[in-house]
């Protein structure tokens, strides 16, 4: 999102990054993500050395990944670094160093454009050696169209747990969390209004709260129904534009 200015005064504002609480206390469990939550909490009694959590954008995969690293840290006699890496940053040059230095690893955003050879070695290195990997992605690992048959067959063995699109209970909790992360106090009326008119997806709700916050911050106004209407209008307009691009 570009830094917008107040079109009445022309004043730009500093762009602060909202906090993002990734502790377990801040993770909401409802029917849409219950299986993924339980699977994370099951560690170290996983059936396999690896687990894959997949689901739509902004559904809380990274939050679960942080919770898993906390869980692992708590079980260790002394803290170790557990990298949370983007799948695209793994290649044949760094695979050896990463694998040797880190018995626990989170790899996010798995998709078809990963370095397959590096991942093939990664799999073999971690398999059966008291080492663990948590994968996250938008689609199940078994559905990612990879070229290397040996890698495909290996990733097919990894248990895949889905986070589904949000139910109403999750949407309510998510909206509350996103405003809470921004230290914005909202009324029940505002929450109900957003619930009534928002698109029912994790990513849309996340973008909507971001847009509401941005308008409120830029114009120095408390969050209100007119601001929500404006944010919904802006996002819908952008979506329509995207269709034409």
């Amino acid at each position: 999102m570009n830094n917008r200015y107040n079109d009445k005064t022309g004043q730009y504002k500093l762009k602060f990054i909202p906090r993002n609480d990734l502790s377990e206390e801040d993770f909401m469990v409802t029917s849409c993500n219950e299986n993924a939550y339980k699977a994370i909490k099951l560690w170290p009694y996983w059936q396999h050395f690896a687990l894959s959590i997949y689901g739509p954008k902004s559904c809380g995969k990274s939050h679960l990944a942080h919770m898993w690293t906390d869980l692992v840290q708590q079980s260790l006699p002394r803290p170790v670094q557990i990298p949370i890496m983007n799948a695209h940053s793994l290649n044949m040059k760094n695979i050896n160093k990463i694998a040797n230095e880190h018995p626990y690893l989170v790899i996010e955003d798995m998709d078809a454009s990963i370095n397959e050879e590096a991942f093939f070695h990664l799999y073999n290195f971690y398999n059966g050696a008291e080492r663990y990997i948590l994968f996250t992605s938008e689609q199940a690992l078994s559905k990612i169209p990879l070229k290397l048959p040996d890698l495909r067959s290996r990733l097919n063995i990894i248990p895949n747990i889905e986070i589904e699109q949000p139910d109403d209970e999750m949407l309510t909790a998510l909206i509350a969390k996103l405003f809470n992360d921004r230290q914005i106090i909202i009324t029940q009326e505002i929450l109900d209004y957003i619930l009534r008119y928002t698109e029912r997806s994790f990513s849309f709700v996340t973008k909507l709260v971001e847009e509401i916050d941005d308008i409120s911050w830029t114009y120095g106004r408390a969050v209100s129904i007119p601001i929500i209407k404006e944010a919904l209008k802006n996002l819908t307009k952008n979506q329509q534009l995207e269709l034409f691009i």
Partner: protein
Amino acid sequence: MKFTIERAHLLKTLSHVQSIVEKRNTIPVLSNVRIEAKDSCINFKATDMDIEITEIVEAKIIEPGATTAPAHMLYDIVRKLSDGSDVEIAYPDEKNALSISSGRSKFSLSTIGVEDFPIISGDDLPVNFEISRDELKILIDRTQFSASVEEARYYLNGLYVHAKNEGDTKVLRVVATDGHRLACAESPLPEGAEKLEGVIIPRKSVLEIRKLLDDASTETVSMALSENKVRISFEDITLTSKLIDGTFPDYERVIPTDNDKILEVNVKELAAAVDRVSVVTERSRGIRMITDANRVTIAASNAELGNATEELEAKYDKDPIDTGYNFRYLLDILAQIKGDDVRFSLSGSAAATVINDTSDNSAIYVLMPMRI
């Protein structure tokens, strides 16, 4: 309760304590000052439930006791009494009220019992240190004007104070922002403040502390902090305030570190030019600052009124930049630059500008531009 006190002492004390009493209160006792005569001293106390101030002053006590009386009215009465006179205060008088007598003047004020007066101090505050009064004044002056007054962003309605390691040196850093500008000032970390994690001291408390510091004659003041309270004390004054229960944003991320277009200009000349040119801005408050080789031009225009420009000599050797600023924000910052020259670190007309004193690195300011 009955005592006699010099009017000047009483007036000074009341000016301090009445200042935190709100003009309107839903709880009647909060409009009152608590007065207790005990052990040859009078203890004055006032609170708005977020701040509590206590000041002890010597007096000739005839009879110990305590009550509460309307703070603003008592102050107004004492203010109008003759300079150099003595004041006798007694409670209860024949009407069960507080009587104030001085010379031929006599007043009677209604009271509320001390048992209804709330006390917010008394907790043990674990972080304790002494800080130079002048250092604290400077830290407040350099930052408080940037604090937000927007209630929806309550976590910006104060000064963020924390201990910070800057390489090998430890500093006490104070930060304030309203989103349009950010002020960040620091001083050497006082002994005992090492464990000071970030706290946000409310703006009203900061302004009260600042007023009290002007009347302080001691060189150092004591500060004590916990997770939810701050206490400042010196001489016979103690101010305790609740802290803002919020998280200050990660301010360091919005301070640009790679602005490479550096403008240096005499601060007094610049402030005077901005002040003159701003006359034609009227409501918009927008002025333009146009940098060019070794000069800077301050300009403003108003479609209905006219325009103004003023050119100044400056050190600048990069591509020209034309940036708009709210002149009031700029003047607020320039007023805090005490050296001869001010440095602007720029990157573009819509990007944050970093401003600091060329001869002093202990404070920096970030100013967001205006689109003009």
